[in-house]
């Protein structure tokens, strides 16, 4: 039973990370109908940035928030400079651009910081923690951080005028323009936000999966699985999906097929969902008008 709870708890922590990444993916998908294949590499690069700051002597939380801000800016810049020019290009061109972006981030990280695996400190270890043997302090901290991020994002989109404008711009760009919303900048801010929350996911994941330029490949795949499971146009669904994948992945990995094939489990989830219920558990059913 203890083992089960332990798997469940760490599944929740990981699931939180996947949920945040899935949310970032959904935010960009809702606004642009594109899947940002470079999201993982961007998050990884951000995490390295944080690591570098701490290496230079900055305290953790300073590095944490500085990274979030820097990632936001980076996301905005990328949207304006790289993504925008391809707004009217065929989908495959955008896919290639995203692949190019991931390569650039991956290589830059390797060049600037080296390809060897590094450890990344968690701010939560070393604090007294009463969770018995079920979860580590970091896992608990990660869950709390995840919840905070989700709450903040929700509040932003539901309660602020800017959040409302961004939702509007994603749903109906033409009408948005007609009420004076600068849709182009909404997209840029969306990218910035996605990059910012992606960086949080990276910083939460790093103590668990260790810091190296290839750390986010698997995480991205699980995030995809979560987004697909929950419904790629539904933020709540994405969050639910991410957590579900984290928990299920852990449990299936521990009890059924072994840890080494967890990626295949994610693959199976994606295919199964797309075959039986393409809009995901909570996504909108799309009906094609003939």
């Amino acid at each position, binding site marked *: 039973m203890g083992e089960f709870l332990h798997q469940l708890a760490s599944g929740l922590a990981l699931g939180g990370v996947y949920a945040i990444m899935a949310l970032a993916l959904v935010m960009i998908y809702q606004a642009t109908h594109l899947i940002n294949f470079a999201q993982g590499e961007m998050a990884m690069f951000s995490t390295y940035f944080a690591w570098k700051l701490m290496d230079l002597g900055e305290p953790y939380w300073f590095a944490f928030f500085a990274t979030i801000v820097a990632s936001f800016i980076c996301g905005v810049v990328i949207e304006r400079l790289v993504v925008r020019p391809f707004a009217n290009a065929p989908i495959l061109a955008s896919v290639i651009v995203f692949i190019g972006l991931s390569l650039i981030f991956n290589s830059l990280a390797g060049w600037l910081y080296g390809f060897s695996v590094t450890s990344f400190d968690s701010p939560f270890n070393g604090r007294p923690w009463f969770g018995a043997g079920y979860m580590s302090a970091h896992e608990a901290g990660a869950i709390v951080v995840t919840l905070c991020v989700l709450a903040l994002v929700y509040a932003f989109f539901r309660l602020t005028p800017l959040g409302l404008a961004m939702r509007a711009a994603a749903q109906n760009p033409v009408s948005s323009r007609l*009420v004076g919303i600068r849709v182009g900048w909404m997209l840029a801010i969306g990218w910035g936000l996605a990059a910012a929350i992606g960086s949080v996911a990276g910083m939460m994941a790093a103590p668990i999966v260790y810091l190296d330029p290839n750390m986010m490949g698997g995480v991205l795949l699980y995030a995809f699985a979560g987004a697909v499971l929950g419904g790629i146009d539904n933020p709540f669904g994405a969050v639910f999906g991410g957590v579900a994948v984290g928990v299920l992945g852990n449990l299936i990995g521990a009890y059924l097929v072994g840890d080494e094939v967890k990626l295949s489990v994610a693959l199976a989830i994606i295919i199964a969902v797309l075959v039986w219920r393409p809009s995901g558990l909570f996504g909108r059913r799309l009906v094609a008008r003939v």
Partner: protein
Amino acid sequence: MSPPILETKGLEAWYGPARALHGVDFEVEDGGVTAVLGANGAGKTTILRALSGLIRRTGDIRFRGRPIGALATEDVARLGIAHVPDGRGTFVDLTVEENLRLGAYVRADRQSVRADFDRMFGLFPRLAERRRQQAGTLSGGEQQMLAIARALLMRPSLLMLDEPSFGLAPLVVAEIFRALGEINRDEGVSLLIVEQNASLALDLADRAVLIETGRVALSGPSQMIRADDAVRRAYLGY
């Protein structure tokens, strides 16, 4: 006689490589109502789209004497030109309240925005009842009212409407046009109305422009258009 709030000279517009407007001249009086009439496919909707910058256009377009032909759509809107598009352009997944708040998005004066909200609900009581409802679940007439209310919340000087009567029951249409008349008289909002329902539009308008295959066939005071038998039979169908 104050200068027209909107005037165009030689307005041309394209859908991709195809030219849809071939040099359209007309004007809207400050505080007046101009109706744009014509058969299906004549180019009426195209005119509004061109004015808002939704499609490629050339020609001289002046708003309060200032050229706006090179502005992006959102900048045209911010100048005080509200466009209620054909199909209403409602944000169907957002609530009625959120749709309205978007109308006030560019405004900074919170107090008067709140006052305007109350006025809108006074003008269109049905919207007040459905404040928290998802806009997509409203009836056609209610969505039209919502679209107009949203546009009015922008505090525009010029309100452009594309076929406000389309697909609506006569009673509802009457209510809407009554409201439009009120808005024009009481607040001095100039109106540019594209309508298929010519008699309805001519009742409200003081000037009318008749469009035929992307060109102005006739323009002048609405009395004149209404009185011309040949025009009525050929273009307006009654």
